């Protein structure tokens, strides 16, 4: 590992979804707004939104987007660990399924059967997030 890169791991209950050793920049969407992490950043723990994590490696012009459903990120000793209860790499996302999930969630919200709304809204956010990661539009 060179001095100007950092190690990124995305960890979920189903194992390590993504592991990249030589990233030059990672962009996180924390609850406080966007945050870029580069090598030798100060140790940080940040709460994450249902959002995308962008991993960039300039040297080999590599770029990857991973969607996560909340959780948190922890950075120390040049290793960034994103811990979330689910995560998907953009290339693995099934847009059609996400679209269906989005429509389902919208229907639930429209029907607004009380306590289901919160869950439906969360589902909608996840679906929109996943669609966005692939197509770039919300």
């Amino acid at each position: 590992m060179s001095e100007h890169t950092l190690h990124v791991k995305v960890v979920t209950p189903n194992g390590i979804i993504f592991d990249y050793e030589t990233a030059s920049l990672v962009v996180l969407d924390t609850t406080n707004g966007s945050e870029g992490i580069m090598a030798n950043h100060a140790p940080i723990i940040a709460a994450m939104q249902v959002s995308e994590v962008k991993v960039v490696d300039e040297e080999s012009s590599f770029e990857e987007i991973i969607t996560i459903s909340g959780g948190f990120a922890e950075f120390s000793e040049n290793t960034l660990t994103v811990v979330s209860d689910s995560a998907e790499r953009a290339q693995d996302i099934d847009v059609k399924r996400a679209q269906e999930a989005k429509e389902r969630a919208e229907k639930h919200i429209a029907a607004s059967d009380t306590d289901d709304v919160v869950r439906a809204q969360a589902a909608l956010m996840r679906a929109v997030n996943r669609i966005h990661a692939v197509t770039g539009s919300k």
Partner: protein
Amino acid sequence: MAASLQDIQRRIASTSKTRQITSAMQMVSTAKLSQIQRHGGSYTVYSDALHDVVAHLATAHINNVKGTLLEQRRVTKVGFLVISSDRGLVGGYNSTLLKEVMAEITRRQLTTDQVVILAVGGNGADFFKKRGFDVAYEYRGVSDVPTFDEVREIVQMATTMYDNEVFDELNVAYQHYVSRISNEVHLEKMLPVSTDDLVESKDETKFTADYEMEPSAEQILSIVLPQYAESLVYGTILDAKTAEHAASANAMSSATDNAKEIIDSLGLKYNRARQSAITTEITEITGGMAALN
């Protein structure tokens, strides 16, 4: 004598069919066991990462625990999350577990209305319903290798109930997988999250760093703690399921052994009966010859 010979033959045939079934079931359970063990390995990475951060946060900010899952409330109702199996044919897996839970309830002198049962698995649900306990939640049909998404419902139900003060303490009772041949009943207090457990961080050196917190440590704690509780419950369900497969493989392997023993002894019986039939026949023939002479 001839009828008995046929009887024995029939019994041998039926026992060997049973043995075939039990040995197939043993193989299936063993396959499921290795499958879930592989999955458990990848889960450990997640739970360790979570544990380390929670441990760090909790030890550094132990004073601000009000309103979080760390807060100790006065206990008026005790919740038990009992993880049993849906199916039978798992040996003493369910009975030892349920016995242990009943013993705990008696030991703490809890009446039926002080206890709230959350049952994962049909055996536990039926057991406590029959005895008049309040089964607030039951979940049947956990798959052989449960995924986090599947278990999320159970987990969220448990933490929501705790937040709504349906119970003030949550214990989880499950069979812990020790090895392929033995399980152990574990009864653990899961909520409120015990700070003692957290202090035993697995990696002491890693979390001495001074972190920037974004947003505040309290807010992060309030996000991370439920996630941690969820991960704990998921971990125990995985553990229990592993133990179930092991117990099932075990029960089926001893059933297969027993069937083999029965077949052996029946074979001996069959040969004896056959021999004595032949002896009788010879005696009859020689008797007949003697009469002719």
